[in-house]
């Protein structure tokens, strides 16, 4: 990730985590989204839900204190917060499918201007890795995506239409990239906040559709 412009991985996660409201139930996908749980968002009480039925998990367990039968969706040995509960997999996806997740944060290969996103299958691949992504994408109240703004060869990941097989259509409401914080508008993306060191024109050049800019565009606060 070093060498990329703008926010680093933790800073992207931080920006998304600051959207979480007191009392929310949140599901964090594997990878960068997991880092949202590191962010200091004051005394807001967030319940983290994991696909395997752990409701209310806490931080990663300290070395030597792991319970090998307690993992989050990424397979990391985590701890429990007071008030946690464990349910089985059908009930856990009942939590998801039933609309009880206030926000899910996932990684993706692409997000479209209509809120579609793709994160389970590469181009030309047979099969793929769906896991719980399609359930979360279709059913969580809010779908937040974190991804690098451009591919390794510099192509946009915020596109007019996904050319990879989608995970769900029309569900993404917020996207954090290393360049800024965006909302799909249907005809493009709205830049809500910009990463330090980036310009709107730089971003527009590598973003699909029409880039609109929030009034009084603010810079994303980093650190702290």
């Amino acid at each position, binding site marked *: 990730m070093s060498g990329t412009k703008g926010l680093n991985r933790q800073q992207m996660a931080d920006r998304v985590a600051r959207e979480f409201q007191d009392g929310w139930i949140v599901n964090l996908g594997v990878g960068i989204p997991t880092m949202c749980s590191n962010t200091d968002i004051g005394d807001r009480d967030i319940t983290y839900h994991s696909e395997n039925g752990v409701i209310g998990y806490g931080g990663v367990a300290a070395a030597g204190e792991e319970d090998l*039968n307690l993992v989050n969706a990424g*397979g990391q*040995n985590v701890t429990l917060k007071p008030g946690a509960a464990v349910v089985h*997999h*059908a009930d856990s996806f009942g939590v998801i499918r039933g609309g009880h997740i206030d926000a899910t944060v996932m990684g993706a290969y692409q997000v479209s201007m209509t809120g579609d996103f793709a994160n389970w299958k590469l181009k030309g691949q*047979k099969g793929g*890795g769906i896991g719980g992504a399609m359930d979360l994408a279709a059913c969580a109240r809010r779908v937040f995506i974190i991804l690098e703004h451009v591919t390794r060869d510099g192509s946009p990941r915020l596109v007019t239409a996904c050319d990879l097989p989608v995970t769900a259509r029309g569900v993404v409401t917020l996207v954090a990239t290393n360049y800024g914080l965006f909302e799909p508008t249907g005809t493009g993306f709205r830049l809500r906040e910009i990463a330090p060191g980036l310009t709107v024109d730089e971003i527009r050049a590598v973003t699909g559709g029409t880039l609109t800019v929030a009034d009084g565009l603010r810079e994303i606060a980093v650190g702290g």
Partner: protein
Amino acid sequence: MTQKTKLWSSFKEAVADIPDGSTIAFGGFAMPGTPFNLIKALLEQGAKRLTLVANTTGGAQQPRMPDIGMLVENGQVAKVICAFTAATRPTDVLPFTKYYESGEVDAELVPQGTLAERMRAAGAGIPAFYTPTAVGTELAEGRETRVINGREYLLEYALPLDYAFIRARTADTAGNLRFHRAQRNFNPVMATAARCTIAEIDEPIVPAGSIDADDVHTAGIYVHRLVQVPPAPEGIWPAKRQEKKR
């Protein structure tokens, strides 16, 4: 048919009668709740043309534990029904993937929640249900959907099992089970969907009545064979995952 007959003295005996062509589900999500010892016994037993059901086919993490990928490598598998035929990270490789890509083994890729719900439905006598999951995706192409209250849903069918291989922390002689933490995952759901559920148990099996009726996670009516996991190295236990360098 309760008490004595639910206790089996070895994994080998507990899987001995599984015929070729069976549909077998495997509990577990990452390491917790995975029936490592039963997988190993099935590798040795050698049943063929199996249809396997599980969250993933295994082998992306280190250390590698007995997994479905090994049954595939051992030539025992016709088809896998799972939520991952490939790893999420393009850099990880599942041993199974090449068998699927070459067409040697078939696969049905199912979203994880739909997979769990299809087995829950089988256990609960629901032959089919509608779900919002996967609508508008490649997985829904050519399949039946229905608009209910203005939203589009996909029709999914129950997934009944011949066998469920599961792992729990505690069992009584009536087959009642308790799971520890994330060990629970798919295990209780698979137990309801299977004609025969075989459970490997972490702790010494206790007399019926030792688990309070309010504390049972899986009712004994769903559990047919119990085998206690011996201490390592004879028995296989969850290991600490080795973190990869990225």
